[in-house]
């Protein structure tokens, strides 16, 4: 059994807790008593936040739409298709025909890279996320 320090994925409080793992599987949550935000307490969502990690409905492979249906693909195929189409649309209709939605759920580092991708690689400031919603 191992414990890893993480931040709750739900609201903006930023409660800290340990994920309890056994053989690469999350089996529970233990709040962190020393953390100044939640001081060892959690709400119902926090206590149960590990459950969706192991959901059988998680996406495990890239999907590409073929003949109208989302179909399993390799990473190479999905990424090649994505970039080829983005570049085609960009050269036909300009950079500002592209839009990017960043996420209030992923990390700072990932939001930074996503923002850098939109601006440096695809030359558009059309980037936003659901802070407004």
């Amino acid at each position, binding site marked *: 059994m191992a414990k890893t320090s993480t931040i709750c994925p739900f609201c903006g409080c930023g409660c800290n807790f340990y994920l309890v793992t056994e053989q690469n599987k999350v089996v529970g949550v233990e709040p962190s008593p020393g953390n100044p935000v939640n001081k060892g307490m959690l709400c119902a969502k926090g206590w149960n936040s590990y459950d969706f990690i192991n959901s059988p409905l998680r996406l495990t492979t890239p999907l590409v739409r073929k003949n109208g249906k989302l179909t399993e693909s390799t990473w190479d195929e999905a990424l*090649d298709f*994505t970039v080829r189409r983005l570049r085609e649309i960009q050269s036909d209709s300009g950079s*500002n025909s592209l839009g990017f939605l960043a996420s209030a*759920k992923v990390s700072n580092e990932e939001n*930074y890279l996503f923002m850098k991708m939109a601006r440096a690689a695809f030359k558009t400031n059309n980037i936003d996320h659901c802070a407004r919603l």
Partner: protein
Amino acid sequence: MAGLAATFGSGAMTNSINEMDEAELFFVIGSNTTEQHPLIGTRVINAVERGARLIVVDPRDIPLARYAHMHLRQNIGTDVAVLNGLMNIIIEEGLYDREYVETRTEGFDELKRIVSRYTPRVVEQISGIRADDLMLAAREYAGTGKAMLLYAMGITQHTTGTDNVKTCANLAMLTGHVGRPSTGVNPLRGQNNVQGACDMGGLPVVYTGYQKVGDEPVIQKFSDAWGVDDLDKAPGLTITTMMEAADRGELKALYVMGENPYLSDPDSKHIERALSNLDLLVVQDIFLSETAALADVVLPAACFAEKAGTYTNTERRVQLSCKAVDPPGSARADWEIIQDVCARAGYPMSYADPSEIMAEINRVTPSYAGITYPRLEMGYGLSWPCPNEEHPGTAYLHKDRFSKGLGTFLPCEFKPMAEPPDTEYDFILTTGRMYFQYHTGTMSRRVGILEREAPEPLVEINPEDARKLGIRDRDLVEITSRRGAVKIKAEVTARVPRKVVFSTFHFHEVPINLLTNPAHDPVSGIPEYKGCAVKIRRCA
């Protein structure tokens, strides 16, 4: 955030969660704190139990109201009038902080002129709050040294959201409740990294740390750091205007990372049409969300437990989250996927791990300059601004001076909601969240215990309205707005006032945003989720 940035120079919670333990009064407006920010709600309740005062301003009888000394239930969308009314009384009775107003603010005369029209009687007529109650609340808030104002989306999700925020800031400045411990204007942010997504420049007008896209020195800095020379200087589109552009066929491709606009945005039919109109929709997520189901490409991502990274909470505290397990199947961390996309797009990146990305963020972002991985690994996070590696971080903002120098009073007039009820659509629908579910339910609806507690969508309706319409508890009702109709079970409860119904957007079975009004605040772009006109009938 635009409203706070304009008045104070910085759009974030001014004070920190731990300061709540020392506060003497909480003024909570438009925040269902115990359900949406449970651990902050707990802090408020604990403070009340040790003797702090609590004023709740909310149309609904939210759980926190049970602990309140005063609960003012304003008519929906009348917040500016209520807050102006409080300031009217505070100025009339000479209860404002003269020295603070003189030395730290500008624009007082204009504020005084505008709020002078909002006498307690006028405000009673607009808001339904009794003049006597308003006077008591004004005296208490102004007369308490350590008074914290908390707000959330009950303030921002209006077509007057920016005005609401500015008016909150005006009230706090007038009474000197900004720039000291256990005071301030404190927007509680809804998602675990919504503050971070803003801080990192996930916005059409700014780079990291709110550095503007049009500023020449900023463009120069990012051009040098990123090795490019053709960054766009014009502001981009917001999420709301992107959907409009997609609908018109001007926006042709959308790359969505970890968001579900199909369920979360107003007027779902319009969103579905806009998304279907795209030539390319790419969605990167952990589940096949309603938006992902419409995509041309779906990229499977790792969830928070499966990667390292930092998240910035509502009090500006940047905290490190570590990797506990591997992602399922061939799913990958979002930062790895982005790096691969960029490599294929001819803009290679070579970060070995998230700490290397943070090192770059440190270099280009003054407010994050001292928030480094070695420091985060040793403690419980650092609150920005943290300008260098010796800096301890900042618990509360605007000490001695505002980020922009003087604080500016930006007085606003009351404006009615965009779609008021009329004879045909005679109810107001207001939307929000509940304790056991979260946002569009992508995560929380896949947690067995949360589903057990809150398995189905309900619409709250006042007992008197229900009686008139022949609706009993758990009857199926149809709610119709000018944009669509849904069928949903009724919960007959006095939690909502008369002529108001409340529901949530957690449940794809009843997408409540089919009904909501996309009319939005002209500055922030936030739609008016908190009020649109609907009609209700019992299904036979």
